[in-house]
């Protein structure tokens, strides 16, 4: 059961996204600066579009970040603003919003790998901290964790180098874009804190905008946005683990719903619901409530103009290479989790790694196991696990 609880309009405005530095706050101010530009050229606009047209343009420029108004407002400026802010807020999918680099399979694979490495590092750091408190720093476990920590840190750094090296492949024959990509990754991609870009980029790549339809009744207009759920959606939900995976996969859908006054309280259930697509939609105009799959999604309409979202499964085949890659590595991910279990047992771990070496014909791991070198075997395992596409 998915509960999409409406947020009252008054409190929605107060519950903005927490901002933690000037840059993001400043991006939020962009309509103010766009308006300053518009005001500086207003007289010219009045010549072209007249007073009414200019007012309409100005209102939408100044205030387009939040959904407001309705499409039957007698004031043409507010009517136009009502339409434009809705359309602008609907652009959450990669096909309408992402730079090409952030839709590239190899970039996404690499980002997923860094994320995974950092998740392991968090577990390792915590465990090492505990061992330190227990005066166990000379234990075999601490030694093994320290070696794994060093390997994972190196791997995170290597992934960043790998991302930097993709510039020519992504932006063929275009040195400007290659350099822009290179600089952006170099300066702003922190391999030790990858959660935000991973969540944003996998979420936006998991859905695609398929179109918009308009329907009108005597009471109101209805906008129906059609979105395709791409195969990547389910791969992301699986790959990053039940809890995080679902929240990553649904991040763009959540952003979309949030703009229109909805919220997803349980992303896991939404992933389940999407796996049962197509939805059967029941709309109760008296209560302004939309129900799908027998109360699976309930979405309260807050505005006079109602916006509906229709999700469809996209034809299979898209992003197959990326998905293949994400699925293929799952077995070793499970091994990694087993290795990090709190009951440290070097013999159990060696036998696990030996089996993995046999299955994958990895001689380096086998040799280390023969030499009773668990640290070396772990390092070779991690290298294989985090191998990136050529």
């Amino acid at each position, binding site marked *: 059961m998915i509960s999409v609880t409406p947020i009252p309009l008054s409190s929605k405005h107060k519950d*903005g996204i*927490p*901002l933690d*530095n*000037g840059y*993001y*706050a*400043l*991006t*939020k*101010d*962009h*309509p*103010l*600066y*766009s*308006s*300053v*530009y518009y005001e*500086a050229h*207003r*007289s010219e*606009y*009045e*010549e*072209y*579009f*007249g*007073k*009414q*047209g200019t007012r309409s*343009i100005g209102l*939408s*420029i*100044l205030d*387009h970040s939040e959904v407001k108004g309705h499409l039957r407002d007698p004031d*043409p400026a507010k009517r*136009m603003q009502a*339409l*434009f802010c809705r*359309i602008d807020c*609907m*652009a959450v999918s990669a096909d309408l*919003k*992402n*730079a090409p680099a952030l839709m590239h399979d190899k970039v996404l694979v690499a980002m997923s790998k860094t994320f995974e490495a950092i998740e392991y590092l968090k577990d390792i750091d915590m465990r090492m901290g505990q061992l330190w408190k227990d005066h166990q720093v000379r234990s075999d476990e601490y030694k093994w964790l320290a070696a794994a920590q060093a390997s994972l840190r190196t791997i995170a750094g290597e992934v960043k180098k790998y991302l930097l090296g993709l510039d020519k492949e992504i932006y063929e024959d275009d*040195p*400007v*874009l*290659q*350099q*822009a990509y290179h*600089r*952006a990754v170099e300066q702003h991609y922190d391999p030790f804190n990858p959660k935000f*870009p991973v969540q944003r980029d996998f979420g936006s790549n998991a859905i695609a*905008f398929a179109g*918009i*339809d308009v329907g*009108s009744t005597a009471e109101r207009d209805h*906008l129906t946005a059609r979105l395709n759920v791409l195969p990547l959606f389910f791969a992301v939900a699986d790959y990053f683990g039940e809890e995080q995976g679902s929240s990553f996969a649904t991040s763009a859908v959540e952003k979309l719903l949030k703009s229109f006054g909805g919220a997803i309280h349980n992303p896991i259930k939404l992933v389940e619901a999407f796996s049962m697509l197509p939805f059967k939609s029941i709309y109760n105009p008296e209560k302004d409530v939309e129900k799908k799959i027998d109360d699976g999604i309930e979405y309260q309409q807050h505005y006079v103009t109602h916006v509906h979202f229709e999700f469809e499964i996209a034809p299979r085949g898209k992003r197959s290479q990326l998905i293949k890659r994400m699925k293929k590595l799952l077995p070793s991910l499970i091994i990694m989790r087993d290795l990090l279990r709190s009951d440290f047992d070097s013999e159990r771990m060696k036998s696990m790694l030996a089996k993995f070496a046999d299955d994958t014909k990895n001689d380096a791991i086998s040799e280390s196991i023969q030499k009773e070198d668990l640290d070396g075997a772990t390092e070779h395992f991690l290298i294989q696990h985090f191998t990136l596409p050529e």
Partner: protein
Amino acid sequence: MFFVFNKAFSPFCEKRIVFFAMEKENIPFPSRYEAFENSLELCRAERNAFRRAYRKTIESLLGEPVIAPDVLRSFSDDEADRVFGALEREGMSAEDVLLLRTRRSSERGLAHCKQQVHEQLFLVHALRDVRTAQTLLYDYMRGQTARENLDDNPVQSKRNKARAFALLQIISEIGSGNCLFPPLEKNMEKDFRYHCIRECESLRDEKGNLVLPMPLMCSLASLHLRFNNFDVDSAMDAGCIALAGHSGEDLLTLARSDLEPAKCKPVITLAKTLRGEDEPAAEKFQQYPAMIEKRPALPKRILTLLWKDIEAARPAKVADKKYERQDLIEQYAKGGDIVTDTERAVLMRELIEYLADYMEALHEIEESHGKSDGFTICNAFRVYKLLRENARKYLFQSGVDHIYLTGSDHGVKHLIQGDVRFSTQVAEQLKWSARDRVCLRQIAVDHDLGYTHPALQ
């Protein structure tokens, strides 16, 4: 985030807030409120003086100019040189060309003066209600104090309160008439009264909310630019994108011709055909000239010039500007391009659709014999100029977006393939007028220009 200061929130500020709270029933009126009216008078006097000078100049010029005054005014310096050169080649006397040049200068001077007055008025009107702003800010601070007492993130509440207090200081400075006209740069550095507005990084609180109404915040954004020595055009400087240089003869033909809305059908048909197709691929850009070829002479000429503009687009070195787009220039010098060919193709399609909607809007007005309220400009050069500047803004936003790759696309993809496509599609289904569609297209061009603010890069 509202304001970011060098020094942390001090006990002194806290005391002032408490003091302010005690006085809440009687918020003091700014001491020099009348300064607003004085500033306004100054602006108006300046405009009136220029208007008198303008009339004098116009009276000294006999007869109507061969090019309409509004068209003359819209020529850039480079375009004017080319057009006047063409007129001389046509046989116009040097004297007449000089008169035309004088007329253009007067027209541009008056327009510039009007614009300055408008900007001052905009500031004065938005900021005059200082008392309301103070009350709102006080309410905000009281809310933050309540949150702090409830242990609901007290650190953040404290910071928000400090920022709101800083804003209050700015508002008070404005109320004292200190912020309308920036002082000389050397004095500004020394004068503590201007530090708060100069040092603010953003105009929001920690949660990203605006504390004051949008128009007032917009005025503060305008002040922020002024007090950091940015004029608006150099802060969001689409002019740093150079387009093709066309012959004076081409420009002159456009300047002397009017579009005929009744003959807009072939352009509308072309736009409809393009709308029915998939999003254009890179190679489509080279196919447009052949498609444009079959259209009536004037739209064909406009679209051909626009196609050449987009093809030739490159970053230009802009003199006398505080902020040069060095990055764009450097990258271009290394052999790159500011946008991809696919983006060029998408942009060209948008310009064709814009022209079709604009002509349809003119036609709607002509047919209805109704009050036009704008949409009367059918001079081919001015319509070309509107589209050309829009192309420049799109190219600029895409170029900046590529250079500073922020993750989200705020260039051609989002603006045209997202906003324009779907908003005009809905507008058509709702049977909105062509005028409404033109406005929607213009909103799409302008609404994200703020992302090109230098501080964001």
